[in-house]
């Protein structure tokens, strides 16, 4: 390899989606045989950067990007991921793109199978060639050998442990003779500790063969272990580009989460008194696709605001969805010391819990119905409120006047911008829709309120109003609130305690006043034992 120019250079790349800047003048270089760790919080721009590198159509569809990508000093422009593959860039995705019913070999050489010509080639073209299974197996074994791992070439992917799936995917990328740059997006996210070890070893082996690797991971100790250099993205800016030698996990964590603006605590210095334990959760698992909760235990005291943070896909959203019965769940959940039957959304509501879903337009609102319907709906269905009986109790019909009164009350209280209580929910802006969702939950007067991603997709001004509303409701009515959010800052602004969820488990619970790097460390897969490792290192 020797001394030579960079293999890949990312040159002053900027990208905005509809005026929203997601990448701002990002530049870095990658040499052959080098491993580059790319880290950043959700929304820092990692994914967008990789989309640009791969020529994903979504980039061109949203107005292209500014800046240049050069390979071997030549500017390249990819119009589809296939161009990127041809140029020698391989990608291992976060989700497996393997075919479960195929063997390791078949997946490794997928659509690049070895072929023997058959008599029908002249008439119908190459696709009528016979597969050369022996040669396919030979190639697959060579790739597995190159990785330095042990995989059975004839095993079905559906029967493999997850680690082997990840290796199969990497093996597929390196069988392309041209592959010189390999991008791995969170390759260790689904792996057990020992499997991750093997993977890192394999990556170093590949790098020694001259393949340049971009390694995206939220497990920072892996980055410091395997990478030669680390680039930290924050809010679309490459905040740091430094060799890994001498850099600690704590440094990277603070670069990753550090904000220039100091957090404003809504209730600074206020002494908080809580009642007895209201909710206790033991060994909860929730089968929510993409947000699996594996084993979570916690308890909440009356009047408290408990926050759940963590990176996307780690399972924080699964917790309220599981307790409220929206996804298959198991474990023990007790409200006021009484067992809560899981997987029964109606019972969960009846015993005094309410949920403001992160899926506002899907689960949260009846989009085509009026505001008064939306606000009164749960209370009406669950508690029989806002209904009046006629004909001596034979029928029950909606009490429109009561509903209107209720709606007007909440519109005034939450300052909802709307024309009338009869306006349709879909006509409101995101922030106002969120207020309606909150009003709907408030209307059932819950003992315990789950709020999930309350500020997702709404603008900055509205965010503050929504957070203030939740805070005020807690103070005025003493309602216990469990809030789940991807934005650490908003958790820190109103929560009494913040639990960080990582890989389906609670990595740790911190007070909101804790240092930012502490949160960063918990999100990076370094729980209590992890940080000890860090100290000893």
């Amino acid at each position, binding site marked *: 390899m020797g001394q030579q120019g960079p293999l890949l250079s990312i040159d002053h790349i900027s990208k905005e989606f509809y005026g929203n800047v997601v990448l701002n003048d990002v530049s870095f270089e990658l040499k052959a045989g080098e491993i580059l760790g790319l880290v950043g919080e959700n929304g820092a721009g990692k994914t967008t950067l990789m989309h640009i590198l791969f020529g994903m159509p979504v980039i061109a569809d949203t107005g292209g990007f500014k800046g240049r990508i050069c390979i071997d000093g030549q500017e390249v422009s990819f119009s589809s*991921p*296939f161009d990127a593959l041809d140029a020698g860039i391989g990608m291992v995705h976060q989700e497996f*793109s*393997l*075919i*479960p*019913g*195929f063997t390791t070999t*078949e997946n490794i050489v*997928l*659509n690049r*199978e070895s*072929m023997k010509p*058959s008599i029908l080639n002249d008439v119908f073209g*190459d*696709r*009528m*060639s*016979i*597969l050369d299974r022996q040669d396919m197996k030979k190639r697959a074994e060579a790739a597995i050998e190159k990785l*330095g*791992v*042990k*995989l059975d070439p004839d095993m079905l992917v*559906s029967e493999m*442990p*997850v*680690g*082997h799936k990840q*290796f199969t995917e990497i093996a597929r990328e390196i069988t392309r003779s041209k592959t010189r740059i390999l991008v791995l997006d969170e390759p260790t996210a689904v*792996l*057990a*500790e*020992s*499997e991750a*070890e*093997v993977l890192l*070893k394999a990556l170093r082996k590949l790098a020694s063969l001259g393949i340049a690797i971009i390694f995206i991971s939220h497990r920072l100790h892996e980055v410091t272990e395997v990478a030669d250099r680390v680039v930290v993205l924050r809010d679309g800016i490459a905040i740091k580009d430094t060799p890994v030698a001498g850099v600690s996990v704590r440094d990277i964590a603070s670069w990753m989460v550090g904000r220039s603006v100091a957090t404003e605590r809504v209730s600074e210095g206020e002494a908080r008194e809580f009642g007895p334990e209201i909710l206790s959760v033991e*060994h*909860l*698992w929730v*089968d929510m696709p993409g947000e*699996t*909760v*594996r*084993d*979570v235990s916690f308890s909440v005291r009356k009047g408290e605001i408990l926050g759940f943070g963590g990176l996307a896909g780690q399972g924080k959203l699964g917790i309220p969805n599981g307790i409220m019965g929206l996804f*298959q769940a*198991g*474990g023990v959940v007790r409200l006021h010391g009484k067992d809560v039957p899981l997987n029964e959304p109606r019972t969960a509501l009846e015993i005094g819990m309410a949920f403001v879903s992160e899926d506002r337009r899907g689960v949260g609102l009846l989009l085509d119905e009026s505001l008064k319907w939306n606000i009164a709906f749960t209370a009406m269905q669950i508690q029989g409120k806002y209904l009046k009986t006629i004909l001596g109790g034979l029928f029950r019909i909606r009490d429109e006047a009561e509903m209107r009164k209720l709606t007007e009350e909440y519109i005034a209280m939450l300052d909802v911008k709307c024309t009338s209580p009869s306006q349709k929910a879909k006509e409101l802006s995101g922030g106002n829709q969120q207020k309606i969702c909150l009003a709907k939950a408030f209307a059932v007067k819950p003992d315990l309120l789950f709020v999930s991603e309350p500020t997702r997709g709404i603008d900055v001004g509205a965010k503050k109003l929504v957070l203030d509303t939740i805070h005020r409701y807690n103070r005025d009515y003493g309602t216990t609130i469990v809030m789940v959010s991807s934005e650490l800052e908003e958790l820190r602004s109103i929560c009494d305690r913040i639990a960080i969820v990582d890989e*389906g*488990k609670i990595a740790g619970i911190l007070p909101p006043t804790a240092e930012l790097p502490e949160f960063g460390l918990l999100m990076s897969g370094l729980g209590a034992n992890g940080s000890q490792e860090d100290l000893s290192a």
Partner: protein
Amino acid sequence: MSGTKSLGRFLTEYAVVIIFLLITVAAIPSSGLSIQYIVQEMITRLGRNTFLVLALLLPIYAGMGLNFGMTLGAMSGQIGLILAINFNIGGVEGLAFAALLGTAVFMGWICGVVLNKAKGREMVTGYMLAFFINGIYQLIVLYMMGFVFPIRSSAILLSRGYGIRNTLNLEIVRQSLDNFLMLRLGEYTVPVATFLVIAVLCVFVVWFKKTKLGQDMRAVGHDMSVADSAGVPVDRTRIIAIIISTVLASYGQIIFLQNMGNMATYNAHDQTSFFAVAAILVGGASVKKATIPNVLIGVILLHVLFVVTPRAGQNLFGSAMIGEYFRQFIGYGVIAFSLVLYAWRARKDAAWSREGLRGSSSGAVPAAAAAGGEGSAK
């Protein structure tokens, strides 16, 4: 524990076959038919129907489910036969003419394009498309033949001067393939040529699965988006699968009709897909998985039942109609039951595969870790 689980899996996997086998075995004695008679019937019916059922295989490999759109192929085959009669091309040449007409390729292409627009709902779309194309078929055969397209043979026209008669006599091609090479084996007669054609198709299917195109088809069938991201031309592959299926269905219908010896011009294709689908499901196939043995077992089981139930009905209830009723009832029942069973099983499998993620059954995680550790040792 795992023993009962695997037994449960076996039972759900083959529930349809097992139920069918039980009904059939129970119905044979009460029909009073001799085994020799039933065996001869089976030989005849295997020759008559197997090709049609084999036509369903490729779309199943390509993940498009049961190709109810094969009716389009059946109609193409019928148009071929009408023209063969019209030009008075008899014997095996007549069948070859009907087969090589090429309408089925066009029909298959239409069907493939439409089904690509309805990914994930191929079966119901194919079923409805067959009804729509049936209308066009009727327009052509009932009004345009003899009116727009000249028809030479006035014997096949309706007396008003245009449109084809309701029943078409296929005398000149009648059983020409079956009789081409008829073998007498003791008391049985075996249409060797027909079975050879079927055998060639089976060999083709086995060979096809080994080709690049066959591999692509399997990949598309397992996961369209993964295949697409690996550069497999998904839409094209699916269209090819449907075209081949439609062409094979047209051959199947030609073989079926030459055996019958006459053709109900406007109804012969009505239940083609229905009986073919019922047969393959009875043979133990599912929407996602089918093999050549499934086809053969299915054709035999379904047709044994068809042969014995009218007689059993006659003997037990004094009415042959009850057997006819059973035919319909069981055919549709099997299809509905298989589809429900398949959907139920798919959900169960998904739940099983996610079980490992749960904290309570943490057994899966150390197992994976151990496997990874094994890898690191090397």
